[in-house]
């Protein structure tokens, strides 16, 4: 409680100090900053609870500080109010003549008017000034108010701040007058403007929007005050003068701005700080106008919200005055610029009058003539003022009625014709010939279709109907009058008559000022936009009443076109409709050229013509105006890329041409599985199929167009018309190569130049053609054979690589159509190793072979050449090399019954002309000329040289021990090799290492007795004689 007591004593001290104020030599500043004894300082330190307190000057303000720190904002505020009131009283007394010396410092001229600063809790700068006694009245007031403001905001009473602020501002202005402080004119206006905006900003900073709107009755005073001050500043600085600020005004402005000082660091970053606003507003006439209008409208709006309509109107009045001045200014300008604007206004009025149906026809003609005369004069006389065109509003000239698109979809292809028919109603009383009527177009490069929803105003039949009357003419023409007659009910006499306006509520409706601000006066607002594209119609004569104008719409680029403005040019006069409403749009789309490829098939679609080549027609639909000549069509097929340059094609024309597609028959169809890559990309996928004897080749052709990222793929199926076979024929040592070419197609072909070449060009080899004709016809499903003899000198070739080639063409095609057909083949083991001869002789003592009697079959195997076949295995016994052969007697026609073994193994010494003879018994089953059973010879390879099957090697018939094994072996071999079974039902048991037989290559074994026949007589005692004729 000592604290309360101390505080009380402090307050008492303060009071005694104040009592002394009437004594001479007392100074307010001293009192303000008076030093009080140390115990108070300690008290305050204790009260704050902060041990490192600064050296505090304790005075009344300190007391307020103390209260503030104790959260006793109310008491602190009271201290400030007391200070404030005290100061006010002094000023009043001073004004009343009661001189107080200390007030002299406040009477010095005001040099700085940088407004209130409410963003800092304590403005130490100003406080220091006050402490030093250098503060001006504005400084002191500002400081006091900022403290009060801070406290009030702490107390959640922001609305009191605004009331006090207004009071303070008024008060300061009055006090400065009272103290006769010399202030530069306008300086106070600046200060007030800045201060009131600063207060408003501060309040806005601590309240949300809804609170602000609910309490604008408190803030509106400040707004109005700021508006007034800005206006007077504008007057002062020549911003509201006829010819803009002169040099004197500019000097004034500079002086005023200098007094503002630098912007405070607190607000330097905020774009809307009062400081910046003021600077900007004073910088130019336009900026001033903008800010002034902004403030005025804000104030008016607030007044309206709180219901103070009269105040709102008062602000509106000064705004109106400002507008009046603007008009005057415009007037003045027009004087300076050759009456330009006045003329403009006069013409606008004339147009309005001429279109007014309420006037007499004569008057209307007169005013219309005025416009026409002016237009003609200026067009003739003033070539140099080409750009000085008079822009008038179109609403008084014509009225738009309808716009119709042709085609009605308003969606056309690039560079296709689109017409717009505009129907408008001319309001002029006489026909007017316009030089040009144009509509500017806004172009957006949009994808077609995306704006389809936007064109809601357009009817499906492609018409846009404009609202019946534009707003300007609505007020002029829409007066609906009707007469009212009232009859008295008793005697039906006319009791009253009058005229009533039915739509008065519409006409008398108050137009919102903000809305009217947008179109203040039509003449300057109407300006023709520069548009890249226009709809134009030249030399149009508009008759009074309805007219129809047809425009051709530009459609060079795909996109969306929106009509913006309409402009009718009449000499130097332009009638402009600033906005076409509802929105009129049309769209232009583009379509890429289309490419289609159709295989031309002679027969059914599935199988391509059986030709080696087929013809394909590519059809290119060009539907753009692009120069197709520059864009080459590239066709990729197999390894080749073919580029086709297309001729220039007009739009919507079809370019059709034939592509002949040749498919080279692969020389060896069986190996055609590999896919080749060109340029890292599979350009061809060929697949061969064998189908019903014909080889099919599937080819894919891709066509790339420069205008499309997609390639067109065509799948073609080719049929190889031929199948080809080769065979090696032997006659003893002589060798013949036979090539059989079979035409599997249904077309007849001509074959020429059948040649067979040896690929390796071995000099010792020679191929002799045995063909007599070089030309031959191969009919459908028929074969052509050609034979060459293979001759060699020296060592017989191991293998021969041959290539058969023939030129072929359809039988009826000319020679030029001849294409090459190749066939590669390889012959292995060409030379004849063994010669086999079989001889059948009647049994000993018989003259002829008879059925039922045994005959002797002598098989002689002769080695014709020394071992040249590497495949042959040799076994060496006692220095004699020999190879083992398996022979087999096969009688395909069951003419013979082989008695005993039909097969056996012989050992052939490796030496030329070594002969081995085998004898066996056969019995003919039929009579007649019977074919000698054929003898087959195989290489016999005892597996792994197993000792079990190691024969005795006395070059005799194999011993019995072997025969069983061999029999089984041969039986199994026979069944495996699909050789005709000899009735051996024994199933081969695979056991151990099996001997293996290996067939000789074709031509390695020459059968010298093939096809030989033996006469077999029937047995004499047979009643029934069977004769078999083969």
């Amino acid at each position: 409680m000592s604290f309360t007591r101390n505080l009380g004593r402090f307050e008492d001290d303060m009071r005694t100090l104040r009592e002394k104020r009437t004594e001479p030599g007392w100074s307010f500043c001293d009192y303000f900053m008076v030093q009080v004894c140390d115990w108070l300082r300690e008290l305050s330190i204790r009260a704050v609870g902060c041990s490192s307190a600064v050296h505090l000057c304790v005075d009344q303000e300190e007391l307020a500080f103390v209260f503030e720190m104790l959260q006793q904002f109310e008491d602190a505020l009271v201290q400030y109010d007391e200070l404030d009131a005290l100061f006010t009283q002094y000023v009043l007394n001073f004004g009343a003549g009661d001189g107080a010396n200390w007030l002299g410092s406040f009477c010095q001229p005001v040099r700085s008017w940088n407004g209130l600063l409410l963003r800092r809790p304590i403005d130490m700068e100003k406080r220091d000034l006050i402490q030093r006694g250098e503060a001006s009245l504005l400084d002191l007031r500002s400081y006091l108010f900022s403290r009060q403001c801070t406290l009030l905001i702490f107390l959640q009473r922001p609305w009191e701040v605004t009331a006090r602020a207004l009071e303070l501002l008024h008060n300061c202005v009055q006090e400065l007058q009272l103290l006769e402080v010399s202030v530069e004119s306008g300086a106070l206006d600046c200060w007030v403007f800045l201060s009131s905006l600063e207060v408003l900003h501060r309040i806005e900073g601590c309240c949300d929007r809804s609170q602000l709107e609910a309490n604008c009755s408190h803030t509106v005073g400040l707004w109005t005050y700021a508006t007034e001050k800005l206006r007077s500043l504008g007057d002062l600085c020549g911003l509201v003068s006829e010819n803009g600020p002169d040099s004197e005004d500019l000097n004034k402005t500079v002086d005023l701005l200098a007094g503002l000082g630098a912007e405070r660091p607190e607000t330097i970053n905020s774009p809307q700080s009062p400081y910046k606003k003021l600077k900007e507003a004073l910088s130019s006439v336009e900026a001033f106008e903008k800010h002034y209008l902004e403030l005025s409208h804000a104030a008016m709006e607030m007044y309206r919200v709180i219901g103070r309509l009269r105040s709102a109107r008062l602000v509106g009045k000064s705004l109106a005055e400002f507008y009046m001045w603007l008009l005057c200014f415009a007037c003045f300008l027009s004087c300076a610029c050759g009456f330009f604007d006045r003329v403009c206004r006069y013409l606008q009025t004339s147009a309005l009058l001429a279109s007014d149906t309420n006037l007499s026809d004569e008057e209307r003609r007169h005013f219309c003539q005025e416009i026409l005369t002016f237009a003609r004069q200026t067009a003739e006389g003033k070539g140099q003022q080409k750009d000085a065109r008079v822009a008038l509003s179109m609403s008084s000239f014509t009225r738009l009625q309808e716009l119709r698109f042709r085609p009605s979809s308003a969606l056309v292809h690039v560079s296709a014709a689109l017409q717009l028919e505009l129907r408008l109603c001319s309001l002029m009383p006489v026909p007017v010939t316009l030089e040009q009527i144009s509509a500017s177009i806004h172009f957006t490069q949009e994808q077609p279709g995306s704006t389809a929803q936007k064109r809601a105003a357009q009817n499906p039949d492609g018409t846009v109907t404009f609202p019946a009357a534009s707003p300007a003419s609505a007020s002029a023409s829409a007066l609906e009058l009707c007469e009212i007659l009232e009859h008295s009910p008793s005697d039906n006499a006319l009791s009253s008559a009058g005229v009533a306006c039915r739509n008065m509520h519409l006409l008398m409706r108050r137009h919102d000022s903000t809305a009217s601000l947008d179109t203040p006066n039509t003449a300057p607002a109407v300006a023709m936009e520069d548009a890249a594209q226009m709809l134009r119609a030249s030399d149009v004569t508009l008759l009074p009443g309805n007219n129809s104008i047809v425009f051709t719409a530009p459609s060079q680029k795909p996109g969306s076109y929106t009509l913006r403005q309409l402009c009718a040019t009449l000499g130097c006069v332009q009638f402009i409709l600033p906005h076409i409403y509802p929105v009129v749009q049309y769209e232009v789309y583009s379509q890429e050229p289309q490419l289609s490829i159709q295989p031309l098939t002679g027969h059914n679609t599935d199988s391509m013509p059986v030709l080696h080549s087929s013809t394909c027609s590519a059809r290119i639909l060009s539907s753009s105006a692009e120069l197709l000549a520059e864009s080459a069509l590239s066709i990729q097929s197999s390894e080749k890329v073919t580029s086709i340059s297309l001729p220039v094609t007009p739009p919507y024309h079809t370019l059709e041409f034939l592509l002949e597609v040749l498919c080279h028959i692969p020389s060896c169809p069986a190996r055609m599985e590999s896919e080749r890559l060109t340029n890292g990309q599979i350009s061809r996928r060929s697949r061969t199929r064998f189908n019903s004897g014909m080889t099919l080749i599937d080819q894919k052709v891709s066509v790339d167009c420069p205008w499309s990222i997609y390639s067109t793929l065509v799948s073609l199926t080719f049929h190889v018309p031929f199948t080809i076979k080769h065979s090696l024929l032997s006659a003893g040592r002589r060798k013949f190569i036979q090539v059989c070419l079979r035409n599997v197609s249904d077309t007849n072909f001509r074959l020429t130049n059948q040649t067979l070449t040896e690929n390796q060009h071995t000099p010792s080899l020679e191929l002799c053609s045995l063909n007599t004709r070089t030309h031959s016809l191969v009919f459908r499903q028929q074969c052509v054979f050609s034979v060459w003899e293979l001759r060699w000198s020296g060592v017989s070739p191991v293998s021969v690589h041959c290539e058969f080639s023939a030129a072929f063409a359809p039988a009826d095609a000319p020679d030029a159509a001849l294409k090459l057909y190749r066939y590669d083949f390889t012959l292995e083991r060409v030379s004849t190793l063994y010669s086999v001869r079989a001889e059948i002789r009647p049994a000993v003592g018989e003259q002829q072979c008879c059925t039922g009697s045994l005959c002797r079959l002598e098989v002689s195997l002769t080695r014709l050449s020394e071992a040249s076949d590497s495949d042959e295995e040799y076994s060496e016994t006692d220095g004699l090399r020999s190879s083992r052969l398996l022979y087999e007697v096969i009688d395909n026609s069951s003419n013979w019954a082989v008695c005993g073994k039909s097969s056996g193994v012989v050992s052939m010494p490796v030496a030329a002309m070594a002969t081995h003879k085998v004898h066996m018994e056969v019995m003919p089953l039929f009579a007649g000329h019977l074919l000698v059973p054929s003898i087959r010879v195989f290489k016999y390879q005892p597996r792994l040289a197993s000792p079990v099957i190691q024969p005795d090697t006395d070059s005799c018939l194999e011993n019995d021990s072997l025969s069983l094994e061999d029999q089984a072996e041969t039986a199994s071999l026979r069944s495996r090799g699909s050789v005709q079974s000899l009735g051996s039902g024994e199933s081969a048991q695979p056991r151990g290492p099996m001997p293996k037989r290996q067939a000789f290559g074709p031509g390695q074994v020459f059968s010298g007795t093939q096809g030989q026949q033996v006469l077999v007589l029937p047995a004499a005692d047979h009643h029934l004689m069977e004769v078999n004729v083969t």
Partner: protein
Amino acid sequence: MAVCIAVIAKENYPLYIRSVPTQGELKFHYTVHTSLDVVEEKISGVGKALADQRELYLGLLYPTEDYKVYGYVTNSKVKFVIVVDSSNTSLRDNEIRSMFRKLHNSFTDVMCNPFYNPGDPIQSKAFDSIVSTMMVQAC
């Protein structure tokens, strides 16, 4: 003293208006006109029930930089508006009140005049002289 004194009828048209610097007459008219906003606000602000007990003197209506506008409403909703120069700081609230009272009395006298048609502009010399005493002596 006062620079402008106005009497406004219940229907908000002026019955009497007089201001001292005659050249700024229009300005005073505007000021008085605008002040009616605040007068209406203050009247409607008080509840209907309390209307009878309401003090006739409305106090300072709104301050402007140069003038202070005071209002007074009689029970018959006739408004008195007095505009005082702001620089005249010696003027106390009580003096304003007494001015209004005097004005009210004089107005009552006018109304009592059997030749006065209520609602007509006041053209009474007695009222004029009372107003003159309250106006700034400058003129």
